[in-house]
């Protein structure tokens, strides 16, 4: 078998393996969702209180319950007594806190996925802390490609405006924008994949130097782009479709079905979080399968340390093999070690 054929075989079932891993370690999903929910609920509290202040004993809110009267909603926005958007800062802070939280726990999450076992709380946060500053550095590095992508988006916007302006067809500019935006979205997905691989590599191989790690991750991602990108795209597709279908159902729900609406919208949020974890789990699974091909810079875990040959004792014929088994592989899961 050729190397390519072997790798193709290894990539089989990667999406399913990732999903299976997320399912087995679903505590992570629920914890992440819980933190997302709690932080957002805290961010929403000032707005809720403000609304309760003006609507708590007023009949004016009824058009919002029996439907969604945009006129009344704008009233809430414009009347100084309610000033609905005045407290949006709390939501912004909630979003930033959740970002920092995710940045912190990503090391722990990847460690769980690498080892495919339940970590003790101390172990989990230990792993999170161990990788936190490395991931902060990676996040800062990621600004470079994302800024370029932002500039590209700005360029696409200008170009579509320029061409659309000169075209008789009203749609021309939009289609150019759409194509450009799609391309940039795919590029952004690749950048995310690249940095995910860098994070996985840092965890699996305990890399400390993030800059070289980043370039190696780029090489790995680029050489395996077909397999990895397909996985990421497939999972992103699930996220987008879920979002679209969820919003479609939401639009069809009767305006008074508040509990069902709440459950549906929360389901959408869960699916968004789940698919992101699914991408991470898939990338860990893929990396574990192919780790032997990617030697470490900091600690060479993939190459067994030379073992001094000891003359076997007559009564312990199996001692040598026991000694070999005690060498800690870089993975600790159920998947087969890399070949």
């Amino acid at each position, binding site marked *: 078998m050729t190397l390519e054929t072997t790798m193709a075989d290894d990539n089989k079932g990667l999406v399913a393996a990732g999903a299976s891993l997320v399912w087995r370690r679903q505590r992570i999903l629920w914890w992440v969702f819980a933190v*997302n929910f709690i932080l*957002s*609920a805290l*961010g*929403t509290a000032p707005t809720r209180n403000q*609304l*309760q202040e*003006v*609507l*708590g*004993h*007023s*009949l*004016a*809110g*009824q*058009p*919002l*319950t029996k*439907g969604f*009267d*945009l*006129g*009344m909603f*704008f*009233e*809430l926005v*414009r*009347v100084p*007594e*309610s000033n*609905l958007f005045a407290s949006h800062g709390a*939501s912004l802070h*909630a*979003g*930033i806190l*959740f*970002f*920092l*939280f995710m*940045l912190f726990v990503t090391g722990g999450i990847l460690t769980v996925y690498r080892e495919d076992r339940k970590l003790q709380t101390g172990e989990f946060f230990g792993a999170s802390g161990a990788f936190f500053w490395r991931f902060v550095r990676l*996040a800062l590095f990621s600004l470079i490609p*994302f800024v370029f992508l932002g500039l590209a988006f700005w360029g696409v916007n200008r170009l579509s405006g320029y061409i*659309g*302006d*000169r075209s*008789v*067809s*009203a*749609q021309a*500019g*939009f289609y150019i924008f759409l194509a450009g935006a799609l391309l940039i979205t795919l590029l952004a997905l690749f950048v995310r994949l690249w940095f995910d691989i860098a994070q996985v590599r840092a965890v699996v191989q305990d890399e400390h130097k993030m800059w070289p790690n980043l370039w190696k991750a780029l090489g790995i991602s680029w050489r395996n782009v077909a397999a990895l990108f397909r996985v990421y795209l497939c999972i992103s597709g699930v996220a987008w479709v879920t979002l679209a279908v969820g919003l479609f159902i*939401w*639009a069809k729900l009767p*305006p008074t079905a*508040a509990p069902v609406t709440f459950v549906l*919208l*929360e389901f959408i*949020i869960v699916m968004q979080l789940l698919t*992101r974890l699914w991408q991470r789990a898939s990338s860990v699974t893929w990396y574990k399968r192919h780790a032997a091909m990617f030697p470490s810079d900091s600690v060479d875990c993939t190459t067994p340390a030379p073992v001094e040959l000891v003359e076997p004792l007559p009564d312990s014929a199996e001692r040598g093999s026991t000694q070999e088994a005690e060498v800690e592989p870089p993975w600790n899961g159920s998947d087969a070690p890399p070949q």
Partner: protein
Amino acid sequence: MQAGKLVLAFAAVVVVAAAMQGQSPFAPKVTGPLSQRVVAYQIDARYLPEKHVVEATETLIYHNLTGKPLDHFPFHLYLNAFQPNSTWVREAHRDGNFRTSTFHRGWDTRRNGSNDVISLEVVGMGDLTKQIRFLSPDDGNPDDKTVMEVALPRPVEPGQDITFKIKFRATFPEVVARTGYRRTFLLAGQWFPKVGVFWNGSWNCHQFHAMTEFFADFGTYDVKITLPKDYIIGATGVQTSDADNGNGTKTVAFHAEDVHDFAWSADPNFKVLESQFNGSVGDVKIRLLSYDSHRSSWQRYLDVMQGTMQRFDEWYGPYPYAQITVVDPPHGAMEAGGMEYPTFITGDTTWWAPKGQKLFPETVTEHEFGHQYWYGMVATNEFESAWLDEGINSYTEAKVMDSLFGKNTSVLNWMGAQMGNSALQRMSYIGVAETDPLSRPSYQDMSIGSYSGITYGKTATMLLTLEAVVGQETLQKALHAYFMKFRFSHPTQEDLLRTVNEVAGQDLGWYWQQAVYGTQVLDYNVRRADSARVDWANKEAPDEKKGETLYQTTILLQRLGDFVFPVVAEIKFDNGETIREKWDGQDRWKRYVYLKKASVLSVEIDPDHQVKMDRNYLNNSIATEPQRGATQKIATYWLICTQFFAQMLSWLA
């Protein structure tokens, strides 16, 4: 043979008559003149698309019906507004203007426009080009050249005519403020020298301002436009001829009577759609000029035109012209959209406009057609009393749109959200309620927000609120009477107010003083609503029991604003009883006390939601039981948005 000649002659007469009938600017059952025709314009224009320039000769016959000798004539040169130091640009830069997005990046020279008078001759008096001088009657701006005046060597006596022959060049800006070009599209508005109006004893010829529109005398227009022959053209009035010049150009002639302006639009990419409205004075042709890209809006345009014309015909009076031309501007020419000229309007839409929203093209088209009545025929002075046009038209927009698309869904009924047109009008008003009175000339308003909020929103909201006093049908009759009495003339705001008083059979001066001449704000508040046991002091009183315990219920209504208006308050009790109290609102507050074996559930001022001018609906009611539904719903959406935002941000982690 003789018989044959007679038959031929008869046939010729029939053909000519038919042709004449086809060229009539009026609907079949209408014969002119409908107005006191002061002006007669004949314009021969040549459009040079590559330069966006029109070169033209204008012959204006002015009939002096003023009863006074006239020795000078002012003219509007509106296109001169589009120069960096003009009053229009200064005001738009200072206050903002909703018809241009030019100024945030400085003045763009593509927005330059001009009206250059090459020569001006008065028949019998010679060339008076050198007599031309520019005036700035409103602000004294020496750089503003939107009004020119020519002094005559001798006056035109009352009853006499004077004929001006003016050669001019109109250079169009890239679309800005109701006129200009975009790619191959041209909307030619305010493009020719137009004489001012001799009104109330003197000339009325204001400079072009950022926050006002136009004012002109009625008359006739015969306009010939020469342009490349692949261009499709639409204009005020009716087309009377279309001649191929054999040199790649054609000359199209239009004729209009009893109108006070002339605009046209041309583009080789126009698609023409026609429909017919069967009105009370005969068929009216609806001619839509649109684009392939806007195909999804074609039927929407025609449907809303049919519905609007039918309601205006039924409610306010007949549309007497033979044709209405609707121009759908191309993408990127939004500032040409939503504009009215006599028998000619521009709509606005996008190729992706969802059917659930009715702003584009429905509301815009309805609104612009409404101007045919409140600007086109009832030709008020828009410089000084813009609310009589834009405001009344916004009110009738709310009535027509609500009638066509539902009271609470006439702006939006999409993705679970609804909005009615009355709410839209109110929204624009409540943010600027105390800024400017309606009676102030709108070019002197505080800002563009105040202009739109007061001129459009306040008038509509004020008239909707007036329905609570005189009734909807009475107000409709009053507007019908106002239209029928003052069409083809220049009424004032007093004419309108007097007409409403007469039809309503009451003196509404108390209302007009506050709503039209004043800046009073209407805001009522339920300050208190509670029930307490009458036997509260008796420590041995039995436990409270529904239907048996006697309560004293206290209701306190308060007038927070300085606008005095009679209101109704509805009090609901827990035994199912409902009481409605009328309060004249004269005092600052009013207390109501009830002794009943029932406790209060809720109190609501204006339970029928008629007082649209009340700036704050949130304080109009008190419910003794907590009302959580709306808070929970909005808080849920807010929560979801926050969660979504947070998880999107974490994608970068």
